């Protein structure tokens, strides 16, 4: 019924084409809440990826056993179990990180990226593909969180991964580590990424145009960029 794509593609699609943050606009809560620093972002993404991968694996294993009426309830219990595992382990082994991510660890349960992937992918594919898909999504999530966290950390506290990267003369913009800064930064990032994509698309179109029309309209089109 469905065309089988290559395994590497199964992984790679999460990086950009179906990036959970930039493309699907999912998992916004942790994306915005914990990215006051790059480290927090990475840690959160790791935790999410862990849950995503394991729950994908389990769910794709038992996908045929679950009756559809209790599908969501079952999935979410499985997810919640892994989240609790992450939480307990973190509190036991990495108390500082656990403090920093605070109440947002339990909210991984309701991160729509995870439930979304279970429903959209793991419930319909074999364990190998599901795990690859989960890893890809996790990596994509990590890319987004790390870059957002990095930007906010640099401007908001002059540091990157805890090391000072901007001179003392630079007054940090406190707004960047506030909620407002999170929304604004992500909004602007998405806007600029979109405009890059748009630009590339226009260039491709201009190429087609140039090939098939012997008029300077193609140049005109290029002029409309931006």
């Amino acid at each position, binding site marked *: 019924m469905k065309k089988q794509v290559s395994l590497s593609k199964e992984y790679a699609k999460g990086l950009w084409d179906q990036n959970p943050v930039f493309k699907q606009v999912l998992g916004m809560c942790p994306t915005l809440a914990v990215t006051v620093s790059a480290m927090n972002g990475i840690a959160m993404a790791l935790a999410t990826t862990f849950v995503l991968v394991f729950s994908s694996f389990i769910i794709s294993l038992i996908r045929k056993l679950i009756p559809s009426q209790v599908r969501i309830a079952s999935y979410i219990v499985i997810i919640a*179990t892994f989240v609790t595992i992450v939480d307990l382990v973190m509190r036991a082994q990495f108390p500082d990180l656990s403090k920093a991510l605070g109440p947002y660890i339990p909210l991984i349960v309701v991160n729509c990226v995870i439930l979304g992937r279970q429903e959209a992918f793991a419930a319909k594919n074999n364990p190998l593909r599901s795990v690859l898909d989960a890893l890809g999504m996790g990596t994509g999530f990590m890319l987004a969180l790390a870059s957002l966290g990095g930007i906010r950390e640099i401007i908001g506290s002059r540091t990157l991964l805890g090391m000072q990267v901007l001179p003392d003369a630079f007054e940090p913009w406190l707004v960047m580590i506030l909620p407002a800064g999170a929304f604004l930064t992500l909004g602007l990032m998405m806007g600029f990424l979109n405009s890059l994509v748009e630009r590339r698309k226009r260039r491709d179109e201009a190429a087609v145009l140039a090939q098939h029309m012997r008029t300077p309209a193609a140049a005109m089109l290029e002029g409309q960029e931006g």
Partner: protein
Amino acid sequence: MKTIVAMLVTLSLIGVVSGGGLAMLSSWADPLIAANKKADTERAIFLVQPSAKSYEKVEKVAFELYRVFDETKNPLGYALPWEGNGFQGKVRMMVGVSADLNTITAIEVLDQVETPGLGTKVTEEPFRKQFQGLVAVPQVDWVKGVPPTKENEIQTITGATISSKAIVGIVNDGLAHLRKDMAQGGAQ
């Protein structure tokens, strides 16, 4: 009927596996988490009573309180965890105070949700340092914009007056409770 049985069995089974697994995990994690928590408290106690070498929990009071000792088990004073309202939410702190309850040894902020970069300055060294050796009778007071002149005064942080005042308020409130308890002989 078959689906109903399937539903019951599946969801119960998942619940059972999940509950069991988590219980086993928690039996491993719980002691570690408790230890972490204890280490945190211990660290805070020694931070607010730098010269202390050991401590014990005071059991008779209605609130959490630690008495600290030097090498020779002489009582140095107390470490009092206390909390109150800050600018945006609860602030939890540890107050170190001398045995006669008249001088503060140091303070430490344990938990807060103040404005990052602004209210959070109360957790930083320059502000906390003002409390070291601060006279706490009749109570701690604050001044704004100018250096303190009296020995029971501290200067508030520019732009974070409310957070600064909240800290002072929590310290005073905690000490007041402690004194009341002492007067009733509870802590002895």
